[in-house]
């Protein structure tokens, strides 16, 4: 009977999602071997009782690398998401609340970004910025904020007309106070849902850029980059590419399910049954 312990039906999917985040945070302490230690005598060993997921071409333990890679992949995706959702929502809320010229300038800017296919733009930007995980994240951030700006702007436009905003104005609260105390808390729910549904996408995109060589640089353990390393050995040593691939698949699936559940719980309008 798990039900009384965990709020509502969020329960089942929050457990693996939280576990993944915890693994990512404490990755250093969970790896059975040093993920960067090379042992060429054991290069490309298939999974056995010592190296549970086998080793790569430098004899590095793949399980350890997948675990430490979760830190790079999951934590940087979450950090990136936090930045774009907060910055984007703030920009959108200010646009919706202030209107006028500020609104026009910022929204037309976001239109320009939205005119490009997201991944193509990110590849071009990451290429121009010159690779590296930070630059890859920056490239994704450049285009990622627009979505949150649009959502929060339209939510703010609705909220701006609510009686409690008038009430706050009449109570003598200034624009900044209204924005922080009344608008942001009310748009937080839908933004959170959007962000939760976005975690999987961001992980895929970051890993995608790394796979293309535009993200994490060797020897950093990152799932996308690890898959790229194993690409040429797909037929001879499939475990090299399958382990990080499966890690991405599992992580993205878990976070997508979490996002779905979160939407059902928070977003009343999304209650289709």
């Amino acid at each position, binding site marked *: 009977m798990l039900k009384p312990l965990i709020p509502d039906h969020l329960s089942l999917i929050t457990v693996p999602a939280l576990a993944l985040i915890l693994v990512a945070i404490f990755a250093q302490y969970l790896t059975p071997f040093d993920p960067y230690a090379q042992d060429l005598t054991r290069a490309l060993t298939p999974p056995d009782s010592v190296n549970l997921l086998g080793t790569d071409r430098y004899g590095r333990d793949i399980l350890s690398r997948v675990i430490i890679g979760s830190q790079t992949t999951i934590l940087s995706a979450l950090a990136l998401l936090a930045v774009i959702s907060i910055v984007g929502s703030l920009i959108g809320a200010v646009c919706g609340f202030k209107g006028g010229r500020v609104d026009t300038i910022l929204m037309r800017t976001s239109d320009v970004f939205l005119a490009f296919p997201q991944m193509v733009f990110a590849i071009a930007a990451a290429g121009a910025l010159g690779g590296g995980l930070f630059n890859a994240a920056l490239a994704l951030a450049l285009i990622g904020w627009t979505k949150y700006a649009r959502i929060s702007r339209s939510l703010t436009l609705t909220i701006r007309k*609510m*009686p409690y905003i008038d*009430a706050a*104005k*009449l*109570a*003598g*609260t200034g624009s900044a106070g209204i924005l922080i105390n009344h608008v942001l808390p009310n748009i*937080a729910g839908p933004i959170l849902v959007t962000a939760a549904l976005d975690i999987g996408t961001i992980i895929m995109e970051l890993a995608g850029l790394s796979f293309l060589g535009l993200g994490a640089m060797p020897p950093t353990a990152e799932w996308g980059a690890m898959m790229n390393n194993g690409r040429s050995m797909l037929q001879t040593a499939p475990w090299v590419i399958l382990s990080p691939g499966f890690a991405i698949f599992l992580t993205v699936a878990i976070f997508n399910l979490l996002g779905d559940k979160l939407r059902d719980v928070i977003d009343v309008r999304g209650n289709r049954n």
Partner: protein
Amino acid sequence: MFENILSVEEVSVAYGAKEIVHGVSFNLRRGEILAIVGESGSGKSTILKAINGLGGVVTDGQIFFDGREITNLDDNSRRKISGESIGMIFQNAGASFCPVRKIGAQIFESVAAHKNWTYAEFESRAGVIMKNINLDAKILNEYPFKLSGGMAQRAGILAATILNPKLLLADEPTSALDTITQVSVVKELLKLRERQNISIVIVTHHIGVAAYMADKILVLRDGRQIEVGTKEQIFKAPQEIYTRELIKAAA
């Protein structure tokens, strides 16, 4: 004692190019209650909005509050008198509280915009008012959705009067309530006037409410002032056909 707290002189209000209210005038003294009555769309609420600066532009005439002109005041000067000197009660009090924050925190926020009270100080002052208006002090720690219509309206009265304003604007404060709660809210407003000598402008389409609590009545139709006078004048000897019709319709 007899000075005018609010003077509205030949005021016209427009939204964009459309003029909604045309040349309305009335005076309100300290402790007086004026009811603005009329059918829906007659511009009743627009007059209140022009007084508290929530919408519309005064295209003609002047509004004076406590001897000072407040016609089309800029946001900063408006903020100083809003809440502290002029309180507002909304038709849907529940919706006038932000849904995601506790009642106490919200009212305290408006207090903090004007005074340096600590939260404890605010609680004790709110406690006195709440006792007077039969409101459980516990609701300060509740979210708005937990309040019934009557409780929300009382919480609205608390929010509007905590800073002891000189003028209270009430936009259909009883319309969303059942009859029994309506009566109790009207009584609370009357007691408030007795205790604090507060002036009230109440907008209502409920002639009974106007007859019960107002000293003066302003009859409005299509944004024009049909008649203004004391309650006795309006009810005993209405000068205009429309006023008679309105009273008859209510009876």
